[in-house]
């Protein structure tokens, strides 16, 4: 440190010298020191000096130092703007390069704003070396200065087709990064990227593009279908592992997003799993690790295909590398089923035994518990087995997860009623052998299970066979060495035990035995009274007094058991963890309102205290009046009752709802095999849980035999009838019935709790700012600030390259341009005529022009100084001024007590005769809905697209089943010929309702309404193209007027945009022009004007029928406003 401070002093001396070479050397040294962790921010100014050196050698060092230590907080950074601009435009490409590189490290929002235009110009530099860097740095600029994205995007897009591969891959990089964050804005680039993907041979670029597609497919399922083929080809052909891995990952992602409503791609999945297997079998740990990682992604949607590789995954548990073992464990978690749970857990238990190192062993332990308890113990068919596993786990030494095991024991014992007897017997055994466990008294150690054991034995003491023995075990002196909170539970629960023993003895008339047990308590309790733990002490002394009192009564031969047992009457029900949060706020309760008037400013109080009192009095009387009202009182009483009913802390009279074990059809019909509990609990040389595995196997075998018999019977019965369903039989998940009639008590929830799991999005996401629509045309206000001298500022000749760029983008086709020129000529002629007609007008015109130009000037200046400037006219539907009410395009299709269907229709420009109907099916019942089939009566014009070979009368199966309360979406494609009229198609949804009572066929009729608006596609339109369209005279005209409109113009436009698929072309005050296009290419133009209480809409369209239908629909929408 002394040496360093000496060095720094030396450097300071060097920096004071005039020689730039010495200075640069000093800065170089500083950079090294900075890396070693020393603060060099004091030298920031010197660094800038070196940056501005004319020699490249020094400049390079200066920029390096700057890029290492400058950040947004560095205040001198503002001074660099001009220097950087100079370097960027240097004739030496390396000067430019080094400036760009430096900029990529320390660009600030200010620098980004000031230099965005310079960098954009560099994107078209003659040297690819510079183009490449400029393109990459634009990404940083976008992040810091999002306003630059739209103006720069067209040029960035151009670079995708740059002749230099380096520049091309840079552009791909940047767009991919942008698209990954906000994919929806980049969908239109998909065809271009598709071309690139199939033509590129550069793996780096390929990986990026594939990644981009991975981000796009969730938004556009059709893209996914297209992708599968080239991706699988790549998977087959590539030798680069990184590319293979990326392809596999993307295929998985694509298939996940496709999984609803598409034919299954089992072949592709199979291919992925195969390739991953090769990765996992590889000796390279990295590949193994990634293979397992990717496997776990497949597992989520295609568990079956992964489950067949169970052997491989289990092998990985033996791997030397812990991270691989942990990955394998993660996989196992998702792989278990009812069928293989016991087997997998058995393997894991073996690993627990031989695992070295407590961290891994603890990890195994938690995983075993996770695996077994997942989704509400879904896979456990035999809870006795599970309790035995838990008990076995208590033999682990040195674990830190005692509380976890304890929590499981408590949870199972409370929620699975049928298991209590068995659980109690096991827990009693644990208490009896407490000395084995209690040796380890560290916090969270295994002794925690005694907490659970004591509580279970106490609470469910009626199931205890040798209650005396257990009580004695709990009163042993050794217990006092346990942690305080466990002792406290001991004390509390020995009273419960005592109470039940007392009752037992009294009922049997064994008075002496009853007195003996009381005596025992009185003898042993004092050891707890002396406890240092307050809780233990307090409880013990309380109870000691109680028992002494009982003894007195016993001596007088008064029966006491009933009263003692009454202390612990009632049963505890588990309460869901979210219950408290879900208690709805009762009507009329405003939590944000002040309970008392907030204290007003002390000043005003001092000034006129009287008036305030007066006012308050008035207010009070006004408030009190309704309270006296009878109705109001009744209402409040009702509300309070409601509140109480929903309050988890009020004990309800009705029993808690109990859920039958799910997914087990006809549990009642399957004979339950009784497991003989007299089997000795410990078999030498064989862990207990193994017995259950064997028993379970036998049981399943028996079950299967019986089922088969039944089935044969059924078959006989059913012969002759035509019944397709349920004839398939393998030993599948559903066939394995649990050994016990298992009631898993669901956790209590307040009654009208809403099933809402809203995940909040991070408001600080830096990429949000880049969520920008890139397809809409540029507005004037969006131009990048260009540095120019204020007095030279002219309006006619925009000097930078930027406006040229804009013109290009505004005129996508040359033809249009020609048209425009012609029109311009026409316009000029007209103008001439006008000129002749009146000089007066001309003057006026001039004035207007001047005013306009002034405005422009203003806006330009503004945009130069401040980033935020409200655009003069709102374009294309972005109406940001005020928040819009939430709208949904999904309309109700049909509804009955079982199911609710809502739907939305979308067309797309690529196909002029097809629309997609998305239907959301929502299961409203408590039953399982399956075999849903949707059928529609086709009309001549509109037909449902059915798979090849099926007849017009066949329905289309809905590709999913619906568990209670679940909703899911399916898409159906319709073909149509004419779109000028709305259509209504009748249809039926048939489905099977399945619940405890059996299953029934149900039907629901509906009418599918194809409005004309559903054939429209929101298409942006530039105002000049719009004007030309109107002038062309090819369009038919029609108009409507709607009265009684009270909503704001803003909302009105939003409604038209949203429900009728229009986009705003231009808006001036309360008048707006809008545009849309049908899937068959009809142009629809609207002029919407708002009067005081009315709205008038003038429309123009190629087809008059379509227009009048559209306007009618709009009228209907608006009249609802």
């Amino acid at each position: 440190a002394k040496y360093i401070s000496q060095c720094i002093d030396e450097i300071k001396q060097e920096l004071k010298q005039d020689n730039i070479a010495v200075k640069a050397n000093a800065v170089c040294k500083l950079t090294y020191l900075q890396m070693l962790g020393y603060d060099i921010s004091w030298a920031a100014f010197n660094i800038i000096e070196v940056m501005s050196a004319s020699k490249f050698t020094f400049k390079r060092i200066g920029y390096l130092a700057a890029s290492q230590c400058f950040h947004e907080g560095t205040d001198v950074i503002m001074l660099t703007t001009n220097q950087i601009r100079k370097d960027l435009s240097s004739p030496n490409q390396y000067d430019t390069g080094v400036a760009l590189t430096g900029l990529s490290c320390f660009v600030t929002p200010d620098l980004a704003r000031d230099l965005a235009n310079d960098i954009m110009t560099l994107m078209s530099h003659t040297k690819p070396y510079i183009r490449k860097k400029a393109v990459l740095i634009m990404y940083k600029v976008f992040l810091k200065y999002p306003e630059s994205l739209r103006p720069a995007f067209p040029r960035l897009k151009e670079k995708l087709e740059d002749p230099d591969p380096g520049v091309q891959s840079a552009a791909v990089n940047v767009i991919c990064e942008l698209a990954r964050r906000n994919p929806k804005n980049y969908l239109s680039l998909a065809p271009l990227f598709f071309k690139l993907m199939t033509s590129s041979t550069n793996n780096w670029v390929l990986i990026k593009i594939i990644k981009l597609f991975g981000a796009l497919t969730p938004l556009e399922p059709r893209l996914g279908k297209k992708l599968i083929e080239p991706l699988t080809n790549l998977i087959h052909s590539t030798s680069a592992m990184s590319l293979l891995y990326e392809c596999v990952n993307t295929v998985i992602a694509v298939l996940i997003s496709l999984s609803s409503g598409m034919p299954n791609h089992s072949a592709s999945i199979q291919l992925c799993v195969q390739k991953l297997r090769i990765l996992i079998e590889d000796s390279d740990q990295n590949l193994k690790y990634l293979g397992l990682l990717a496997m776990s992604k497949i597992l989520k949607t295609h568990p079956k295909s992964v489950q067949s590789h169970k052997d491989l995954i289990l092998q990985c548990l033996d791997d030397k590398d812990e991270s691989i073992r942990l990955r394998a464990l993660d996989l196992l978690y998702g792989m278990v089923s009812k069928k293989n749970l016991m087997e997998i857990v058995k393997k894991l238990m073996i690993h627990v035994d031989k695992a070295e190192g407590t961290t891994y062993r603890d990890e195994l332990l938690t995983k075993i518990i996770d695996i077994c308890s997942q989704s509400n113990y879904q896979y456990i068919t035999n809870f006795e087995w599970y309790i035995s596993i838990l008990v076995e786990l208590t033999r682990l030494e040195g674990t830190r997860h005692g509380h976890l095991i304890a929590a499981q024991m408590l949870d199972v014992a409370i929620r699975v009623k049928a298991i209590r007897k068995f659980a109690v017997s096991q827990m009693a055994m644990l208490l009896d052998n407490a000395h084995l466990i209690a040796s380890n008294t560290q916090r969270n150690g295994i002794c925690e299970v005694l907490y659970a054991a004591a509580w279970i034995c106490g609470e469910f003491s009626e199931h205890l066979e040798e209650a005396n023995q257990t009580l004695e075990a709990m009163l042993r002196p050794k217990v006092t060495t346990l942690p305080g909170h466990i002792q406290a539970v001991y004390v509390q629960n020995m009273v419960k035990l005592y109470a039940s023993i007392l009752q037992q003895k009294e009922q049997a008339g064994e008075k002496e035995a009853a007195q003996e047990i009381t005596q025992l308590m009185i003898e042993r309790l004092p050891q707890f009274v002396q406890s240092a733990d307050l809780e233990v002490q307090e409880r013990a002394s309380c109870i000691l007094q109680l028992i002494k009192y009982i003894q007195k009564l016993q001596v007088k031969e008064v029966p006491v058991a009933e009263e003692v047992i009454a202390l612990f009457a009632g049963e505890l029900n588990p309460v869901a963890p979210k219950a408290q949060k879900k208690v709805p706020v009762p009507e009329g309760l405003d939590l944000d309102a002040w309970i008392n008037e907030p204290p007003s400013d002390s000043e005003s109080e001092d000034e006129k205290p009287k008036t305030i009192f007066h006012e308050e009095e008035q207010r009070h009387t006004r408030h009190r009046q309704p309270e006296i009202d009878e109705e109001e009182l009744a209402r409040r009483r009702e509300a309070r009752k409601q509140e109480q009913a929903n309050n988890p802390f009020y004990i309800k009279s009705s029993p808690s709802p109990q859920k039958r074990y799910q997914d087990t059809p006809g549990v009642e019909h399957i004979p339950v095999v009784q497991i003989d509990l007299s089997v000795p609990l410990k078999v030498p040389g064989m862990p207990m849980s193994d017995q259950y595995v064997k028993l379970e196997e036998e049981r399943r075998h028996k079950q299967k035999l019986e089922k088969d018999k039944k089935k044969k019977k059924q078959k006989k019965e059913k012969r002759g009838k035509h019944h397709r369903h349920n004839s398939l039989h393998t030993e599948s998940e559903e066939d394995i019935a649990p050994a016990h009639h298992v009631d898993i008590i669901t956790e209590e929830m307040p009654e009208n709790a809403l099933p809402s799991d809203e995940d909040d999005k991070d408001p600080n996401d830096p990429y949000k700012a880049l969520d920008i629509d890139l397809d809409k045309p540029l507005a004037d206000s969006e131009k990048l600030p260009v540095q120019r001298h204020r007095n030279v500022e002219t309006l006619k000749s925009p000097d930078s390259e930027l406006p040229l760029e804009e013109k290009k983008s505004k005129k996508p086709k040359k033809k249009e341009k020609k048209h425009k020129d012609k029109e311009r000529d026409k316009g000029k002629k007209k103008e001439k005529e006008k000129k002749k007609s009146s000089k007066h007008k001309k003057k006026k015109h001039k004035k207007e022009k001047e005013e306009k130009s002034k405005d422009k000037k203003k806006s330009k200046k503004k945009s130069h100084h401040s980033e935020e400037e409200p655009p003069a006219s709102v374009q294309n539907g972005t109406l940001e001024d005020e928040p819009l009410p939430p709208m949904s395009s999904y309309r109700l299709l049909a509804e009955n007590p079982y199911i609710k269907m809502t739907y939305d229709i979308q067309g797309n420009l690529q196909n002029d005769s097809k629309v997609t109907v998305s239907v959301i099916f929502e299961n409203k019942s408590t039953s399982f809905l399956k075999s849903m089939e949707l059928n529609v009566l086709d009309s001549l014009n509109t037909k449902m697209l059915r798979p090849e070979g099926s007849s017009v009368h066949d329905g289309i199966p809905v590709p999913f089943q619906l568990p209670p309360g679940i909703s899911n979406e399916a898409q159906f494609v319709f073909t149509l010929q004419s779109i000028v009229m709305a259509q209504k198609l009748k249809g039926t949804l048939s489905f099977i309702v399945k619940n405890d009572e059996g299953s029934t066929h149900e039907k629901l009729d509906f009418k599918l309404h194809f409005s004309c608006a559903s054939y429209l596609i929101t298409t942006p339109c530039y105002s000049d193209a719009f004007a030309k369209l109107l002038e062309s005279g090819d369009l038919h005209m029609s108009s409507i007027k709607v009265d009684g409109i009270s909503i704001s113009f803003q909302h009105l436009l939003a409604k038209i945009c949203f429900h009728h698929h229009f986009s705003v072309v231009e808006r001036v005050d309360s008048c707006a022009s809008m545009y849309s296009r049908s899937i068959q290419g009809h142009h629809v133009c609207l002029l919407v004007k708002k009067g005081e209480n009315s709205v008038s809409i003038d429309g123009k369209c190629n087809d008059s029928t379509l227009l009048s239908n559209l306007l009618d629909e709009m009228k209907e929408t608006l009249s609802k406003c």
Partner: protein
Amino acid sequence: GRILCQIHFILLFSRQGKLRLQKWYTTLPDKEKKKIIREIVQIILSRNQRTSSFVDWKDLKLVYKRYASLYFCCAIEDQDNELLTLEVVHRYVELLDRYFGNVCELDIIFNFEKAYFILDEFIIGGEVQETSKKTAVKAIEDSDMLQETVEEYMNKPAF
């Protein structure tokens, strides 16, 4: 807010835990950086040789590889491709190798600014800018040429 990018940072450190190079593509306060470096160096050095090269760290993934006595470590985002990142690291080592000729830790200590220049030619703002080895090395050699001519010019006695 923190600005993210593909590679968040690159660290080079020796087996003894001495930092040899650090490049950040995200802006963080110095204190935070120091803390992160300390944490990561410790995590990686404590890992077994035979383990995989990937570590989940906070919401990022660390991808590292040891070349002789130096560890090269990159932090990438969750969706990023680990194998590709390993290739990036390897490519950087190749570039160093080509430039220094059989690179060793000492090269990077004595010519640390060159190591930075090479990295800057290869990766910019967390994105790979040059996938071709030849072009990247040539760019550096060319700018070195420029440097040398300037140096020659400087070394001339000034009259």
